[in-house]
């Protein structure tokens, strides 16, 4: 079982792990030479199924295993994110699966070039990173390159190798065809407003009696219609507040991706929803509504730091599915993060 890759896009990888980490501490990482999958399945809250093209993160990759050259790992995201954060200024970074005392680890080797030449406390060691795979985090001076020094730092992240059987029963949640699909406004904007909502509702419960304090979960209502409107709202004793975005885009369905082709689209729930509601969002009709936890939503919104288009699919009073397409150079949306948020029952 071998895995070795050089990281091309450290900042994306860091932001990705940070966003995922807010939803759960452990990720199932499925590595293959075609794609990398990150899956977070917390006990409660939002599931994330991310499928990344190799070049979204890695420059080169090599994966070999007895099971169709696929490796399944359980990775602690906090450690991985911390290690990646220290690599933000690196000139290059590599990651590989290795063993330390028979325990599997992911070794992240970071090479940083500093222009400083006043600091020479370490003896020069002309050795490559390969011979230090079982050492602790270590720095080495490397005098190659005149005044520039190369610092090599290796982070070791303990992981668990998952047998194919262990993960065989894990599947993306199945969901019926959505009633409404809509392109979300910038997530950071959405997050900022919904965070204010959550704060308001929390402040209200805090100030009121203990009877209401038990329901400290803030229930945020998110709704959208097929006329470019998105609405978030929250209700408390003292107020009910809602924000409506208008002029958003409802992408057209691709007949090739809908069961039944053209006929399938005609029968699609969203086609029916198009008949209802208005573009100014003032009508009560045509909304697909889900009710979700405000704080959980805030965590999901943190993926906004990655940028990219986000399409939200609303299954009325059932679930909200977000497809976050990572921006990449060649214009294809090969990398997609899928968030499954189930609605509270009314």
């Amino acid at each position: 079982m071998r895995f070795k890759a050089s990281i091309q896009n450290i900042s994306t990888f860091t932001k990705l792990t940070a966003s995922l980490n807010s939803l759960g501490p452990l990720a199932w990482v499925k590595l293959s030479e075609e794609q990398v999958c990150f899956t977070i399945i917390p006990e409660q809250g939002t599931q994330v199924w991310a499928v990344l093209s190799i070049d979204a993160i890695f420059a080169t990759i090599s994966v070999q295993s007895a099971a169709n050259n696929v490796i399944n790992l359980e990775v602690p995201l906090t450690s991985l994110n911390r290690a990646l954060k220290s690599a933000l200024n690196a000139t290059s970074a590599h990651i590989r699966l290795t063993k330390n005392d028979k325990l599997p680890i992911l070794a992240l080797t970071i090479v940083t070039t500093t222009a400083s030449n006043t600091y020479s406390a370490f003896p020069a060691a002309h050795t490559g990173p390969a011979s230090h795979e079982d050492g602790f985090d270590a720095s080495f001076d490397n005098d190659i390159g005149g005044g520039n020094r190369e610092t090599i730092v290796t982070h070791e992240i303990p992981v668990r190798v998952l047998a194919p059987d262990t993960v065989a029963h894990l599947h993306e949640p199945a969901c019926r065809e959505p009633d409404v699909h809509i392109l979300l406004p910038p997530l950071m904007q959405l997050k900022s407003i919904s965070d204010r909502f959550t704060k308001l509702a929390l402040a209200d419960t805090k100030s009121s009696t203990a009877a209401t304090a038990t329901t400290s979960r803030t229930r945020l209502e998110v709704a959208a219609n097929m006329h470019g409107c998105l609405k978030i709202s929250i209700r408390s004793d003292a107020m009910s507040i809602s924000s409506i975005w208008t002029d958003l885009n409802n992408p057209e369905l691709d007949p090739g991706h809908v069961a039944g082709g053209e006929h399938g689209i005609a029968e699609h729930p969203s086609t029916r929803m198009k008949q209802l509601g208005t573009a100014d969002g003032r009508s009560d009709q045509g909304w697909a509504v889900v009710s979700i936890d405000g704080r959980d939503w805030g965590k999901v919104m943190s993926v906004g730091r990655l940028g990219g288009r986000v399409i939200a699919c609303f299954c009325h009073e059932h679930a909200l599915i977000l497809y976050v397409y990572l921006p990449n150079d060649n214009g294809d949306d090969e990398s997609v993060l899928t968030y499954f948020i189930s609605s509270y029952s009314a």
Partner: protein
Amino acid sequence: MEDEEPPVLTAVSSSARQLYLLLRCIAFSNKAHVQISDLGLKLAVDEASAMEASAFLDKSLFTTYTFNAPAQSQNPPHPDSDDDLDPPSATTPTFQISLPALLETLQIFGLTDPSTSKPPWARDAPYPTSTTFTGNNILGGMNNLCRIIYDIPGAPLSVTLTEASIRTQCDLTTYEAEYTDEIPFDRQALALKVIMRGSWLHDAVQELSSTTPEKLTMYAKTVRGKPFFALSSSGTLGSARVEFNNQPRPSAYRTPASTNLADPPAQPPTNLLETFQLSDPDTVLRSSYKFSLIQRAARAMSVATKVSIRADTQGVLSLQFMIEVEGGGSSGGGGKISFVDFRFVPLVEEDDDEDEAGDDVDETIMRHGSGSDEASEDDDML
């Protein structure tokens, strides 16, 4: 919004920021009383009946202000030279709302703190619908259209903010008004009236707050025809005093200790106290207040251009702050002037029990007031 009956109040402001800046001055309580009249909106908060504060949103702050008295005929607007609102008449709708919720709503687009943290929308927006420029517009937020509607008595007060393609509506639950009596302040029986710059009062109170005092005592006296005004604080950690000497005599005693609060020694000295009226010039006016309550007005002091400090013969203190809010685009030129009022009930003076202490303080005041001693702004009276 039925057609048959026009809403009690429809008010549209082109700048939520103006309203926010004014209402922030009284943001120390959870619930605010709202009183709608022909002249504007009055929001009032009180604390333990020992102090009350109110901000008056004059109808001139709004581009549209339509008030339809809910029942009977509306009272004619009271002519009021003092810019104080008269007690509510029976037909002015009065109710309570959650003040934090209103403030949060007014700043929902993050219009008040562009400096804090990084602007979340200013970063490169990956959406075709929102370019960098529209993003900045949301952030800058100087001209949020803000619409306040109060449909019928008992209905929620609905505040709608519109910014680009986002519309936020907040329906604030209206609660029954809790009190009807204001702290009585007799404008006809004024013992003292002082007008000065708000920032000077702010500086003085800030200075005094360093010892976390419990009590703030106000002294006023006319010394040889010259006004004398001092604020003194006392607490467990000690006491301190800030004096405002109008036109101090250019005596040799004047040391370089004078700061921005004291007058520059150059002639003629500018008047620290724009107005100084004492009903009885022969006696020392002395009145004490709870310091922590006075501090609630600190934000108003810091933004006010002028403050009018008045005390009536009962010792009730009224602080009236004149606040200029920037035009916001709708007003023709210059800032609009708004008023925020605070009233404080005095602490009961225990003159008889603390004879020595009281006399001692008065004597030092006299000494300083007569200009025979050094005129420091902070003076330990220990």
